[in-house]
């Protein structure tokens, strides 16, 4: 689904990407882990075209999206839920979702029923101002907003950040369900090991702007020292 090869980029004051190689298979949930400031968020931004790529290549389903403007990458089927969620706080819940629909022709701008099946709350509160939502609710909204664009690949940046554990669990369950029912491929940056072990199929660890280690989830289950090696501060 996604192939990243030799990607180099820098972003603000955070560490540059220094030759990232990563691939995500169709239908899998891949977790991207590592300590803070190792370039995980920058990698997602670079895939999304929000950070200028200096060298290397990003391909989605075999088609290169390197250097494309962000909106076009989105149209190629990549959904993005950034760190901090970045919902449109002054918009209503429904308006937030409708922004995700604007890419389609006018007649097709209908929110798929499944979205409300996964996130019934968004239907009940559709006229509420999104900014008044709790962190967890905003996260659900942000995921749903990305999903209405019917992406093939979803990039999630720290979905558990600042959210209470019970909601994190709920979000994890929903993501797993969506993945199983629709075959959506997910690349998720996450620090929360519990969440990852619940949903991910495979795992990659970043260190100093590179992928330091990649393996299947089972391997981590067997050998927890991998986690301490790449995650402990």
């Amino acid at each position, binding site marked *: 689904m996604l192939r990243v090869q030799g990607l180099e980029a820098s972003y603000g004051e955070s560490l540059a990407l220094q030759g990232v190689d990563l691939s995500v298979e169709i239908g899998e949930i891949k977790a991207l882990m590592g300590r803070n400031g190792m370039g995980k968020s920058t990698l997602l931004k670079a895939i*999304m*075209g*929000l950070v200028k790529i200096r060298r290397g290549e990003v391909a989605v389903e075999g088609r290169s999206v390197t250097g494309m403007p962000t*909106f076009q990458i989105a149209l190629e089927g990549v959904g993005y839920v950034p760190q901090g969620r*970045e919902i*449109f706080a002054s*918009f209503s819940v429904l308006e937030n979702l409708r*922004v995700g629909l*604007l890419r389609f022709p006018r007649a097709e701008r209908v929110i798929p029923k499944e979205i409300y099946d996964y996130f019934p709350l968004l239907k009940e509160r559709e006229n509420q101002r999104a900014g008044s939502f709790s962190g967890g609710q905003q996260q659900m909204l942000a995921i749903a907003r990305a999903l209405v*664009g019917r992406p093939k690949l979803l990039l999630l940046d720290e979905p558990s950040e600042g959210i209470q554990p019970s909601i994190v669990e709920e979000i994890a369950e929903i993501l797993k369900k969506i993945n199983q029912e629709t075959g959506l491929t997910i690349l998720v940056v996450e620090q929360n090991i519990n969440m990852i072990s619940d949903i991910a199929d495979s795992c990659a660890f970043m260190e100093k702007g590179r992928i330091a280690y990649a393996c299947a989830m089972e391997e981590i289950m067997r050998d927890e020292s991998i986690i301490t090696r790449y995650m402990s501060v």
Partner: protein
Amino acid sequence: MSAAVQILNGLNYILVLILVAMGLVIIFGLMNVINMAHGEFFLLGAYTVVLTSKMGLGFWVGFIFAPILVGLLGAILEAVLVRRLYHRILDTILATWGVSIVIKQGIILTFGPEGLMVKPPMPEMVTFAGISYPSYRLFIMGVALFVIAATFYLFLKTDFGLGARAVIANPNMAASLGINTRRMYLTTFSLGSAIAGLAGATMAPLMSCDPHMGLGFFIPAFLAILVGGASSLGGILVGGGVIGGAQNAISSVYSPVVAQIVVFSLAIIIIRMRPEGILGRKARD
């Protein structure tokens, strides 16, 4: 002049000023670009009418063509100039200002520096409740009100407006959701320009058209934005009302120069007293 006519004239000026300011502010709101050529777009709108009148095509042809031509020019300008300077916002101001110099000088070379008159397209007067008032001025007010209302509708009620507001709130996020930000910028710049062109065309029969008239509207429109705040469309209504109203009221009692001095001082004081209302949200450069 009776008080009623005076007030109507004031309202007339305010509405046109709001129109000019609105064109500026939608471009600014979306792209963070101050279009210094906005006054010259107004000028081009007015001279379109001057030209069609001269050619014998009459006012109405110019009136229709002015927003189209100026909107087209705005689109070209965005595509060949403003787009190159996305990452140098300060330079977009300079570049559009360079464009304004070229346009103004082009007008001087083509039409000469002196003022030109356009034959009034609707010379008859309307009398209502004992007040006699030029029908053309009523027409202008109608047009201005319509365009202002339509712009509000476009940005607050339509899908295009939803996308535009998303781009204003968070351009990167909007693009990540598949909104074509480039086309959005192009459309908005063109639309803002077209509004200026239309405003110029409507004003042409009311004043003597000279190459400096654009600046004469750009500056008060800019002050109106500063006073009202650029963060919401509603701010321009307030700003346009304050600046346009004060300008008109004072110049009818004293002189236009006194009015300008007072209005400018007023604007400066308001900026000092209420900085949060003035471009507060978009103060980054």
